[in-house]
C-alpha cells in the first residue's frame, strides 16, 4: 500500500491553523459567556411563557403596551408570524394571566391560547442541578467507555474534542442570546454522544494502522487514517445534518433552537474529529515524549 500516494491533505502539518481557528471561536464564546452570560429560559430561571395566536395581525409594540399596563413591559416578546406570539415574563399566577389575556382580547383582538408554561424557582434550581448531573454522568460514562475500549490518551483526545464541541455550541448560544432550555441540554447530550462517533471512526482507523503499519511515523499514520476515513466522516455527518436541517426549517418554532444546537454541534463535532482529536494525540506523544514505534509487524497476507 502506498501511504504517501493516498495522502491528500496534510492535517498534521496544518494542525496549528486548526488549533487557532478553534481557539478563537471558543475564546469569543467564552468571553460572551463570562460577560453576557446565558439567557436561561423559564425551565431553569423560572417564569411564565405564554404562546398565543390572535385572530388578527397584531404588532409587537401593541402587545408590549398591554403588558406594560401590568408592569410587564420588560418581557421578552417573540413574534412568530403576524398574529402568533411567544411571551416570556416573570412568573405570574393564573389570576393575573386571566387579566392579561382578557386585556389582550379587549384591546387587540380575539385570541387562542396555544401554550402556557409556568415554572417556579424551586423547580428551576432543581432542573439546573439535574442537567448538570446528566452532563457529568454522560462525560464520565463516555470517558470510562473510551478508556476501556481504547488507550487512556485516546479518551483524553476524544473528551477534549467533545469539550471543544460543547463550548462552541454554548458560546454561540450565549453570543446570540438564545435561550438555554431543557431541549438544549438534550441537544448537548446528543452532541456529546454523537460527536464521538466520527472521532471513534478515525481513532479506530488509527489504532488499526498503528498495529499493521509499524514502519511509518506517527505523523504519517495520523494523516493517513484521517484521509482514509475522510469520505465516510463527511458523509455520515452530512446524512445526519440533512434531517436536522429539515427539522430546523419545517419542525416548528418549539424545535428550531434545538435543531440549531444540533446543527452547530454536528459541524463542530465533525470539524474536531478531523482537525483536533487525532492531532492532539501527537501533542500528547510530544509532551510526554512517547515513542510511538510499536513492534514491527509484517503486514497481513492478502493485503499486498
Amino acid at each position, binding site marked *: 500500500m502506498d501511504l504517501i500516494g493516498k495522502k491528500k491533505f496534510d492535517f498534521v502539518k496544518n494542525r496549528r491553523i486548526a488549533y487557532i481557528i478553534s481557539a478563537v471561536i471558543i475564546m469569543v464564546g467564552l468571553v460572551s459567556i463570562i460577560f453576557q452570560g446565558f439567557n436561561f429560559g423559564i425551565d431553569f430561571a423560572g417564569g411564565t411563557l405564554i*404562546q398565543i*395566536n390572535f385572530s388578527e395581525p397584531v404588532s409587537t409594540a401593541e402587545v408590549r403596551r398591554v403588558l406594560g399596563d401590568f408592569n410587564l413591559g420588560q418581557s421578552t416578546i417573540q413574534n412568530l408570524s403576524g398574529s402568533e406570539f411567544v411571551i416570556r415574563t416573570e412568573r405570574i*399566577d*393564573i389570576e393575573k394571566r*386571566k387579566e392579561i389575556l382578557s386585556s389582550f382580547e379587549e384591546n387587540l383582538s380575539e385570541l*387562542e*391560547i*396555544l*401554550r*402556557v*408554561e*409556568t*415554572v*417556579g424557582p*424551586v*423547580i428551576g434550581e432543581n*432542573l439546573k442541578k*439535574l442537567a448538570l*448531573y*446528566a452532563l457529568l*454522568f*454522560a462525560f464520565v*460514562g*463516555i470517558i470510562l*467507555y473510551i478508556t476501556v475500549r481504547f488507550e487512556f490518551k485516546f479518551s483524553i483526545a476524544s473528551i477534549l474534542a467533545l469539550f471543544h464541541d460543547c463550548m462552541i455550541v454554548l458560546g454561540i448560544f450565549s453570543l446570540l442570546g438564545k435561550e438555554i432550555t*431543557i*431541549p438544549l*441540554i*438534550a441537544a448537548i*447530550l*446528543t452532541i*456529546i*454522544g454523537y460527536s*464521538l*462517533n466520527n472521532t*471513534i*471512526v478515525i481513532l*479506530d482507523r488509527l489504532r*488499526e494502522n498503528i498495529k499493521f503499519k509499524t514502519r511509518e511515523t506517527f505523523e504519517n499514520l495520523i494523516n493517513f487514517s484521517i484521509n*482514509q*476515513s475522510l*469520505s*465516510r466522516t463527511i*458523509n*455520515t455527518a452530512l*446524512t*445526519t445534518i*440533512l*434531517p*436536522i436541517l429539515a*427539522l430546523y*426549517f*419545517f*419542525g*416548528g418554532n418549539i*424545535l428550531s433552537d*434545538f*435543531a440549531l444546537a444540533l446543527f452547530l454541534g454536528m459541524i463542530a463535532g465533525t470539524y474536531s474529529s478531523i482537525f483536533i482529536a487525532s492531532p492532539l494525540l501527537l501533542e500528547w506523544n510530544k509532551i510526554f515524549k512517547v515513542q510511538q514505534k510499536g513492534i514491527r509487524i509484517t503486514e497481513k497476507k*492478502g*493485503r499486498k
Partner: protein
Amino acid sequence: MNWNRTLRVASIFIVIIIAIFLSSPINEKINLGLDLQGGSHIILECVDTPNAPVDNDAVNRVLEIIRNRIDQLGVSEPVIQRQGANRILVQLPGVEDPEAAVEIIGKTALLEFKDEAGITQLTGAHLLNAKTNFDQFSRPIVLIEFDKIGAKEFGDATKSNVGKVLAITLDGKEISTPVVQEPILDGKAQITGKFTVESANHLAILLRAGALPVQVEILENRSVGPTLGRDSITKGIKAGIVGLILILTFMLIYYKGFGLVADFALVVCILLIVGALAGLKATLTLPGIAGMILTIGMAVDANILIFERIKEELRLEKTFRASIDAGFSKAFRTIFDANVTTLIAALALFYFGSGPIKGFAVTLSIGILASMFTAIVVTRIVLELAATKFSSKALV
C-alpha cells in the same frame, strides 16, 4: 439459496411483520405525550401556613379532593400522583381548556359566610351538595344544600343577620353580597354572583369536592392547547418526511446500488422504531419526534461505514463476497463503539428527563438499537443476496 440464509431472511420478515402488526392502526397504537395531544402537566406543592400546617394526612386529603375535582371535570385518564412529602403531580391529557383546569385544581375553595363586621359566621365545611341552576332572569346561579350541622349553623347565621348583608366569599374574595330577608332554616341557599354558565359550573364543582385543608402552590405548569399539539404533529411529520427524502436521495446518488440497499434498510429501521414504540407502549413526545428524525440520519451512518469498508476491500481486488464479509467484520467494532457512546448519552438523558425529554431519550435509544440491527442484519443479508446475483460493479 442455502438454508441458513433462508432462515435469516424469514426471521427478518417476521420481525417486520410483527412491527407492522404492533403499530397499526398507527393513530391508535402510538401514545401521544401531553405536548402532542394537548393537555396539562402540573406540579403542586402543599405549603405550610400558620393556620394550616402541612402533615401527611393533609396531603392525602388534598390528593383526594383534587381527584374529585378532576373527575368532575370529565378528563379521561388523568394522572394524579403524590411525589415525595409535599408534592402532587397532576397530568390531564386532552383537556380542551387547560387554563380552566389549572384554575380549578389550584384553588383552595374555602367558602365563607361573613357578617357586616367581616366575621366568619360559617364555612362550606358542612355542605351536602352544590349544583348550578338559573334564576327567574335566567342568570346562572349555584344552589347549595347544607347537611344537618351546616343547616343549623346557617339557620343561626341568617337569624342573627336579618335585614343585614351576609357576604359570601371564596378564598377571601367576595362573590356575592345578599341581604338576608328572613332566617333560612331548611339548609338550602342560592348564590347569585356575576356568573357565567361556566364559572357557576366551576364553583359548583369546587364546592362539591370541598375545600383543600392546606394551601397549595403551583410549582410547575405546562399546558399545551389541542391546536398547538396537532400543529406540532403535522410539522414533525413534515420535517421527518423531508429529512427522509433528502437522505434517501443522497444515498441513492452517492452510493447507487449500495444506496438502494441502505434506503431499504432505513425504511425497515423506521418500521422497527415505530413498532417498538407501540409495542413498549412508550409515549411519543415532540422531542421524541425530533429524536426519530435524528435517528433517520444516524441510521444510515452504519451503512456508510460498512459500504466504505467494502469498497476498500474491493479495491484490494477481493471477491465481492469476501469483501462483504471483511467489510462487515471490520466495520462492526466501530459501529458498536460509536453507538454505545450515543446510548450512554441517551441514558443520562433518560435519568435527567422530565416527560418530553424522556420521550427523546426513548426514541433515540430505540432508534440506535434498531439502526444497529438493520445495518448489521438486514443490510448484510440483502448484500449477500445481491452478491449471488450481481457483480460488485453493479452496486458501486
